[in-house]
């Protein structure tokens, strides 16, 4: 069994590595450094770490000022506070200005668990994606998180990195290379494409394996960059498979599913099933129970795939029967 690592853990490690390589990197937190895993950076580089206390608006504004003076600030807190509480600060002091601020938010989605709906961000991707100048990364595992953090530091301009609390298994091999804006095809398949981000990528791979046993060959794309979206990979998946399922630990409006639909409806309309949290808030519960409740599991993806392929254009050939 492969070791699971939460993307927030990977973020904490990536930050320290980045701090060693680049003296311009500074880190800010709003009293959650132990949870967001910025505490290790704070220990190693105390002079480059700023804990602003429970003050998210000031967190983002201070990061904007540091960026305006040439630093590369990473500002961290829980996703629900980082994006919603400080949205106007992100909009006006960061996105409108195009300043070089990286917002790395942890505890996204329902896997926050027991803290409940007040703390479960189901809208942060939608909020961040709607802002001009903003790049949005939703890494699936440790390797993608390292890639996203390095890419964010290496590019000029605002970036949102969405990180999770729960451990996730690795989805990439040794040779993985993170390229901003480029989807990663983790599995070939011509019957349907599952486009996933974050913790749902490993579930998508499990689902694809289960579907193969039923004779359905599913392509799996890890869409670690939700903005700018890899429209080429989405359109290719739509053209070559004729049906799409999106999977994300986020509301079904405005996130990855919304982004994919915006592309396919304009360029290659095919049926799409968006797996995510419907138009409701989360609630308290164990992370696994919540994922089960919202169908954010490999079984949920399998169900969505079996449903969506029945809506495919009848001119397409049906899935090939199981081989062997």
């Amino acid at each position: 069994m492969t070791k699971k690592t939460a993307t927030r853990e990977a973020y904490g490690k990536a930050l320290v590595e980045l701090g060693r390589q680049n003296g311009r990197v500074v880190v800010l937190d709003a009293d959650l450094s132990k949870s967001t895993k910025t505490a290790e950076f704070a220990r190693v580089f105390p002079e480059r770490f700023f804990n602003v206390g429970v003050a998210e608006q000031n967190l983002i504004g201070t990061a904007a000022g540091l960026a305006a003076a040439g630093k590369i600030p990473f500002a961290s807190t829980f996703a629900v506070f980082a994006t919603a509480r400080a949205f106007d600060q992100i909009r006006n002091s960061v996105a409108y200005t195009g300043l070089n601020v990286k917002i790395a938010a942890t505890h996204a989605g329902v896997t926050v668990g027991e803290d409940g709906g007040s703390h479960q961000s189901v809208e942060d991707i939608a909020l961040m994606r709607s802002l001009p100048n903003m790049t949005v990364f939703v890494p699936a595992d440790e390797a993608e998180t390292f890639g996203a953090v390095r890419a964010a530091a290496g590019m000029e301009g605002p970036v949102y990195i969405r990180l999770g609390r729960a451990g996730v298994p690795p989805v990439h091999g040794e040779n993985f290379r993170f390229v901003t804006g480029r989807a990663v095809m983790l599995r070939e398949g011509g019957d349907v494409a599952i486009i996933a981000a974050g913790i749902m990528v490993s579930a998508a791979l499990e689902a694809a394996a289960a579907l193969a046993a039923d004779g359905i060959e599913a392509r799996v794309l890890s869409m670690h960059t939700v903005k700018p979206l890899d429209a080429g990979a989405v359109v290719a998946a739509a053209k070559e498979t004729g049906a799409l399922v999106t999977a994300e630990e986020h509301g079904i409006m405005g996130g990855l599913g919304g982004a994919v639909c915006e592309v396919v409806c304009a360029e290659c309309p095919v049926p799409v099933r968006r797996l995510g949290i419907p138009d409701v808030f989360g609630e308290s519960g164990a992370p696994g129970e919540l994922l089960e409740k919202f169908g954010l599991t490999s079984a949920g993806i399998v169900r969505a795939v079996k449903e969506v392929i029945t809506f495919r254009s009848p001119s397409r050939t049906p899935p090939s029967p199981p081989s062997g």
Partner: protein
Amino acid sequence: MGKREIDELKSRAGEIRKDIISMLGRAGSGHPGGSLSAADIVTALYFKVMRIDPQNPGKPGRDRFILSKGHAAPVLYAALAQRGYFPREELFSLRKLGSRLQGHPDMKKLPGVDMSTGSLGQGLSVANGIALAGRLDGLDYRVYVLLGDGEIQEGQIWEAAMAAAHYRLDNITAFLDHNGMQIDGPTGEVMSPEPVADKWRSFGWDVQVIDGHDMGRILEAVEKALAVRGKPQIIIAGTVKGKGVSFMENKVEWHGVAPNADETVKALSELGDRGGMVCHD
């Protein structure tokens, strides 16, 4: 500070007021009241206090100015133009499609604008970030911030005020343009900021209260502020909204309405413009 230098700065402030009126008259919209109330402070900063180079507006070691009350953009634009950051004629493009002079300051468009502002309450946090960076880099630049007295009703101002004192950011000097008015009426009626000096003091700031139209006092206050160690400083400047134009002074209605052609001529003549509409020397 010699009397002659103070007289020159006063005269410069008059020129800046004229440009404010001229550009707003031409634009047909904008905020004269809070631009005029801040004119003496902004003049002192751009023509005496700040170490800046209009030829090199992005110089890392320069002093910064953040117009946190971004709706007073005309006073900043007039000061930047007269200081040589861009041609004075360009002031007439204020608020026009394609202009670098946006309705609220845009650092991406206009050289000399150190921070884009407009949504109130955000400038002081940004000042904190710039001040922290200056400390990390061992640069001795200072960050000047202009706050409105309506603006400080925003909660973020107090988050930032607490942080600036916590970090002992003595390289920040803020001004409060305390003109006592906001869009809906006197600040005392809408949402009183008083006792405003006590509030800042209790947040750990060095506080001075001055007449914000007395050029000599403004310069003295800055000098005192610059000598303060270990604390951010705020200069609470008592001002008159619409200062310099009789029919605009202390009138809430002139917060966000531009003068028409007749009012523009009248205002300019009060400000001592011999040539009428033209804002050039």
